[in-house]
């Protein structure tokens, strides 16, 4: 394939992953400008790249997505889960197209079609996202009906007398709430009735209709009624809706040539009326009202207005103004200037004259510190917190000074002179704590002033501090130089190193031969000492290559936010996913093998573990369930955990089911402990789910998971507390490649047993072997240990060799925390091997975990001790 195209695919996949990540991050933080910008940029880059290679369908789809993202980041549409869904779907299609390009260098017609449909869908939805319902007309219009940014609208000169007072108040309220107010003039054509239209119906169905009136557009008074054509439409409509023009034009799409849109000056509707009488009480009211306003005592202000309304005559002008005061006071403090104007109007008995900043035709929030400043303040806060940990005084002082300067400059730039003054006083105290306090208060105040809707109360469990630190570290790491290498090249390197390790193993044999067969002991010694050097270097080489193959767990973890999101949506459950320790590393094969079992485990949690929100609330749990995916290193193992705070596993239920299925005996049913009972879920053919869902299927799950994990040399364990939750732990070796084995011999055949399992070797006499219930046991240092003859396990019909004293040679193994004695013929020392697992139908021979090529070229079969235990 063309190298450039290859590059496109590699980069494209990375960009796509970034898009996925950001889309999901955004759902938690829908107003985050940075994320929105980044998303837009990434999609834009993707689009540009696709254009270079003439993948038209992909470009179109990306273009539509980019346009949508642009609208969102401009604030015209607010990001919500519908937008997330549609973008995720679009990216899935793009990803599928990349896959096709990777294999065929083109995109199939089918997929192009799909992309086109999705692009059209996004374009149509641009407008739909702004209104809950669109008018019920067929959607087969040409998709070019997107309006470009509208030309500035004219202000309609409203005759406010046409609007009833209470409706005026509704309109002004909507305006104060920051809603778009659009005025529509609808002039249906004369023959519209013959087209089956009912303009009145369309008017009444206007989304968020505030006011409407219909009137005759012709003077028919002079006309003789008998000559009237009642089927000619001569009625016009004026409409005010709390919607933006785009939504309304969508509503009136079919009659677009017959409507015109205007802005209105909502405040021009504030026209108090009534008898104007002077009254000294007015002055008192106004001055106390102003005082309360200055003190920001909004509640008392409202009460004062109420009582004013009570004792003023309903016919009076002042009463009318006060009614407007009531409306405006609901939106304090941002309506302060208007309230002042109204109060003045009571004083002067003149109609209120509102001044609005001509640049804003919407009510703006009180000037706050910009987003960037808040971010800057947050980082300064972090720096200060970290400062407290340092001991280096010079460093401390210098950093503190720079923080002070940063904040000062920030306040200056934001023209917050009052805050600046206050801060300078605090700064002079030179107390880190005081500065911290100040910054914290700043951040809190500014966040309160934001009029965002409260997010549904999701419990945010405390994020461990290590997470922040580790994140900083990984960011530093990625800043270091990184090389992108083709995976196949690394594999080749690893194979060569493997062969080198094996080849070097032959040298000790040769050295021995030199001494024994050729009698050159000096030469033999020299060879052995050189071998030691050789050995050390090749082992280091092997380690180095293994290090290259180390990847972080995040490659597996990164798909889970999306998975959890999609599945929890499907199941109507609220779930929060927390990921810990994703920079933990392990060999890439191990990580890859981890992927499927982990998906299954997480799905299980989502499906069976976590309860639906109502049930959780009933149980007194937080509505949103939590799943924690955790990775950590312990010695030469990597531990991956999936912890949920769901139902937990009921040991009794499990026992019952196992018994019913004949998997355990009655005796086991009564004697089994709870911990053991829970482990029964690993048995093949087990499932307590009443209804198998399309997600988790039948109980093949845990058994398959365990096998898959054990195949790569790992183990699975499970802990659960009924009602509280379940934790499933997977332990994996850091690397799969080289194993240290002990060579044993039986019936003149050699086998290997992994050293990890071997506790000790002992001689055991026939007399010490006893038979209990058909099983052979013996006592080793006070413990009862079951024994087996290796020949029996391997189906070799020969008795084992004994020494002169009639003793057997045996290995004591520790498998799954249990002892097992294996009787063998002879030991032959240990060796390092590269275990090659069986493939094809050799895989079914479970007793062996694979084979290895020895230094002398012979093939060694390596026994899987776990199978020996089962066989027993």
């Amino acid at each position, binding site marked *: 394939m063309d190298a450039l195209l290859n590059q496109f695919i590699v980069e494209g996949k990375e960009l796509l992953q970034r898009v996925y990540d950001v889309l999901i991050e955004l759902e938690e933080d829908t107003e985050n400008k940075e994320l929105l910008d980044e998303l837009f940029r990434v999609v834009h880059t993707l689009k540009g790249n696709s254009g270079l290679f003439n993948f038209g369908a992909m470009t179109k789809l990306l273009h539509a997505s980019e346009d949508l993202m642009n609208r969102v980041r401009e604030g015209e549409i607010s990001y919500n889960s519908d937008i997330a869904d549609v973008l995720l779907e679009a990216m899935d299609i793009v990803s599928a197209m990349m896959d096709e390009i990777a294999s065929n260098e083109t995109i199939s017609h089918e997929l192009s079609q799909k992309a086109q449909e999705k692009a059209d869908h996004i374009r149509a939805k641009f407008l739909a996202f702004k209104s809950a319902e669109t008018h019920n007309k067929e959607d087969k219009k040409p998709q070019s009906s997107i309006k470009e940014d509208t030309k500035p609208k004219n202000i309609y000169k409203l005759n406010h007398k046409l609007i*009833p007072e209470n409706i005026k108040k509704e309109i002004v309220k909507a305006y104060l709430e920051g809603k778009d107010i659009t005025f529509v003039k609808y002039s249906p054509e004369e023959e*519209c*009735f013959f087209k089956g239209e009912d303009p*009145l119906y369309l008017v009444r169905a206007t989304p968020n209709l505030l006011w*409407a009136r219909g009137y005759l557009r012709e*003077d028919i008074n002079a006309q003789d009624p008998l000559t009237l054509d009642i089927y000619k*439409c001569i*009625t016009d409509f004026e409409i005010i809706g709390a919607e933006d023009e785009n939504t309304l034009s969508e509503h009136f799409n079919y009659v677009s040539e017959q409507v015109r849109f205007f802005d209105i000056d909502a405040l021009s509707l504030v026209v108090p009326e009534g008898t104007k009488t002077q009254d000294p009480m007015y002055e008192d009211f106004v001055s106390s009202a102003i005082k309360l306003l200055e003190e920001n005592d909004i509640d008392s202000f409202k009460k004062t207005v109420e009582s004013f309304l009570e004792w003023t005559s309903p016919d009076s002008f002042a009463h009318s103004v006060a009614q407007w005061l009531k409306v405006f006071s609901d939106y304090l403090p941002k309506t302060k200037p208007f309230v002042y104007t109204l109060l003045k109007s009571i004083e002067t008995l003149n109609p209120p004259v509102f001044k609005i900043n001509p640049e804003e035709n919407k009510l703006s929030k009180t000037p706050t510190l910009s987003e960037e400043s808040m971010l800057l303040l947050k980082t300064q806060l972090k720096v200060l917190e970290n400062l407290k940990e340092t001991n280096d005084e010079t460093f401390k002082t210098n950093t503190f000074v720079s923080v002070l300067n940063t904040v000062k400059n920030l306040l200056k730039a934001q023209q917050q002179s009052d805050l600046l003054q206050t801060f300078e006083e605090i700064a002079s105290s030179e107390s880190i704590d005081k500065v911290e306090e100040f910054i914290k208060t700043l951040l809190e105040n500014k966040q309160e002033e934001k009029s965002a809707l409260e997010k549904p109360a999701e419990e945010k469990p405390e994020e461990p501090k290590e997470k922040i630190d580790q994140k900083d570290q990984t960011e530093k790491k990625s800043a270091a130089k990184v090389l992108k290498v083709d995976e196949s090249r690394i594999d080749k390197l690893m194979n060569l190193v493997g062969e080198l390790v094996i080849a070097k193993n032959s040298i000790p044999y040769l050295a021995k031969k030199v001494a024994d067969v050729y009698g050159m002991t000096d030469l033999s010694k020299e060879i052995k000492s050189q071998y030691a050097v050789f050995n050390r270097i090749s082992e280091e080489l092997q380690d180095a290559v293994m290090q290259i193959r180390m990847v972080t767990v995040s490659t597996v973890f990164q798909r889970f936010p999306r998975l959890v999101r999609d599945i929890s949506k499907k199941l109507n459950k609220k779930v929060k996913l927390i990921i810990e320790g994703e920079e933990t590393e392990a060999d890439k094969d191990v990580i890859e093998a981890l992927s499927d079992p982990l998906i299954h485990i997480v799905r299980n949690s989502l499906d069976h573990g976590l309860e639906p929100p109502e049930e959780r609330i009933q149980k007194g749990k937080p509505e949103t369930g939590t799943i924690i995916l955790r990775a950590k290193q312990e010695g030469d193992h990597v531990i991956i955990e999936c912890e949920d705070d769901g139902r937990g596993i009921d040991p009794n239920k499990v026992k019952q089911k196992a018994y019913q299925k004949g998997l355990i005996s009655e005796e086991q049913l009564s004697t089994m402990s709870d911990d053991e009972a829970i482990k029964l879920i690993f048995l093949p053919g087990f499932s307590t789910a009443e209804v198998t869902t399309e997600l988790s299927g039948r109980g093949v799950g845990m058994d398959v998971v365990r096998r898959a994990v054990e195949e790569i040399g790992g183990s699975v364990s499970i802990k659960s507390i009924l009602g509280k939750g379940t934790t499933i732990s997977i332990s994996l070796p850091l690397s799969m490649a080289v194993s240290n084995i002990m060579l044993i011999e039986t019936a003149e055949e050699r086998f290997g047993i992994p050293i990890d399992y071997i506790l000790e070797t002992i001689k055991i006499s026939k007399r010490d072997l006893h038979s209990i219930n058909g099983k052979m046991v013996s006592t080793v240092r006070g413990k009862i240990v079951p024994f087996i003859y290796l020949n029996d396990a391997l189906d070799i019909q020969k008795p084992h060799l004994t020494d002169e004293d009639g003793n057997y040679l045996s290995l004591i193994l520790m498998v799954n925390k249990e002892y097992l004695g294996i009787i063998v013929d002879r030991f032959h020392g240990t060796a390092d091997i590269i275990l090659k697992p069986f493939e094809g139908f050799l895989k079914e021979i479970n007793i062996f975990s694979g084979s290895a090529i020895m230094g002398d070229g012979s093939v060694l079969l390596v026994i899987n001790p776990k199978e020996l235990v089962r066989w027993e």
Partner: protein
Amino acid sequence: MGIEFEANVAKLLETISIEEAEGLFNWLLETKDAKVDVSQLDHLHTAVFQLLLILKPDIIGAPQANDLKMLLNIQGGPYEENNIYH
């Protein structure tokens, strides 16, 4: 559905379609001191609405729907008559 005519009161029931326009029109021309009862009105076709604008019978009762109240001017208030034309 439809219009019930009784003496000088035309009761508009539920939804009045364009087909009823002619009947109402004729009745309004013939009837003295015609009154139109809209208390049970859910919707009326524009043509019927237009008739009310043109012939201006007295409206009695009030429909349930607020927007209909607004359109039929059944709120009282300091505003001019509906029949304003450009």
